[in-house]
């Protein structure tokens, strides 16, 4: 079943300044789809259009078959800039719980979800800390926990690990993969990092730029459970990585 369907999506900022042109792709239920492209190909614009944060010029977005206008129900976003998307005046637990209050869930269930999602990202017992007291990687885990607790139908991730160090990044990639498998979470993952896009994805879309549109689509032929060292030395990984790299080179 299709979880997210993007059809003929176009976005331009004013006349003659198209950012996205006639973009179509779908994310299937329980799938992790990577979107990778050279910088300036409109990845962030695409994600904001899907999240309903900026209006599309043309085309439509459907979540579970329902056409959405404005911010769709059942989506959660993890932004690149965790420092500015977590609220510094709320404790870690409050940050995770805040969106749940709007869902009108009973207090007990909210708390259970906060516990579970913080545990899922390895931050149990950090409720009472403030985000700015944590490292960058931990802050991004809080943002992921917040999205998990929200139990979205589709999780959007916008270059979420672009501003953490390489070690932390591998850990967060594995966390994303684990969450995807354990919770059966449908994820749309936007990145400019080729290795990351291949390592994480079940399926992958390469964008070309000016204006952004779909250049290629490929199914990643890697086992479901992955390992930073083992997976990245598999012939399939090396081959598909080169294919994507060649596409990106053509796209730039």
């Amino acid at each position, binding site marked *: 079943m299709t979880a997210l369907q993007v059809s003929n999506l176009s976005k331009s900022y004013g006349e003659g300044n198209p950012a996205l042109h006639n973009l179509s792709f779908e994310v299937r239920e329980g799938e992790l789809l990577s979107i990778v492209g050279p910088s300036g190909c409109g990845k962030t614009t695409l994600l904001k259009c899907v*999240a309903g*944060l900026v209006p599309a010029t043309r085309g439509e977005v459907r979540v579970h078959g329902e056409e959405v206008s404005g*911010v769709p*129900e059942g*989506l*959660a*976003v993890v*932004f690149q*800039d965790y420092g*500015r*998307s977590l*609220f*510094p*005046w709320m*404790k870690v637990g409050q940050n995770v719980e*805040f*969106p749940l*209050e*709007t869902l009108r869930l009973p207090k007990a269930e909210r708390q259970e979800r906060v516990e579970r999602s913080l545990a899922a990202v390895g931050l149990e017992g950090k409720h009472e800390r*403030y985000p*700015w007291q944590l490292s960058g990687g931990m802050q991004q885990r809080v943002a992921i926990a917040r999205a998990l607790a*929200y139990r979205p139908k589709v999780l959007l991730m916008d270059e979420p690990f672009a501003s953490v160090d390489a070690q932390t990044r591998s850990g967060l990639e594995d966390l994303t993969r684990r969450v995807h498998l354990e919770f059966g979470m449908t994820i749309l993952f936007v990145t400019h990092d080729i290795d990351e896009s291949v390592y994480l994805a079940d399926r992958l879309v390469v964008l070309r730029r000016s204006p952004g549109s779909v250049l290629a689509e490929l199914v990643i032929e890697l086992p479901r459970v992955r390992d930073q060292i083992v997976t990245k030395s598999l012939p399939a990984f090396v081959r598909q990585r080169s294919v994507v790299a060649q596409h990106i080179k053509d796209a730039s």
Partner: protein
Amino acid sequence: MSAAHAPAGRRAGGLAQGLLARLGPVVLAVLLWQWAALAAGSPFFPPPGRIAGRVAELWFSEPLLTERFWQDAGPSVLRALTGWLAGAALGVVVGLAAGLWKAAAGYVDPPVNFLRSLPKPAIVPVFLLVFGSGDLMRIGLITFGCVWPVLLNTMQGVRSVDPMYLETARAFHIPPRTQLLRVVIPAALPKIFAGMRVTLSLSLILMVLSEWLLADHGLGHFLITAQRTFEILDVWAAIVLLGLLGYLLNVLFLAAERRVLRSRPS
């Protein structure tokens, strides 16, 4: 963090040193003043020792505060704080509205800046005519003075809320009312507090000014009466008490501000 791990002795030593560094220059200045006043022997500049004695005699004896203290300072502080709070409340409410309503910015900014720049004493005759010579005029004047800095700061605070915060809130379907209460106001709070801190001292200035006019009690009245009757020592005593009150209010406000904003990165 490092202070918490330092040995107790060194911490106490550091505290004493900090206190000395802070109070040292003050003590030195007072001593110098004392010496200069004694040397000059001018009736207009009594030595600080005598002023302190007079302050204590008027307001700070039997056991802690005299009845006179409540008579002189009580109404004054009450007026200042009432006007300050009313001004701050008004400033926050209007500032929030003006900050949120982006289209109104062009209409709001010029008149607000005009009114803010108006020397406050200039408005006194109008307030006297409209509100009479009672407390309404005094509190009204203080309120009028305190509104503008808080209003401007609140407005700027709201306008400069990081758009990422709002995008995040929107992405999670946080309704507008909750966004205002839980995101916009907390994000603007440091600026709101900065505005309120500025107006706290302004409220004392306007309180004294308003009590020079047709008042029969209060510190401003005490001060102006002392001056008219050549009670030089009382003039100085009133100045010192006003300074002490201003200092105390500021310390209290800073403590409250630190408490409310304690959860922020420094």
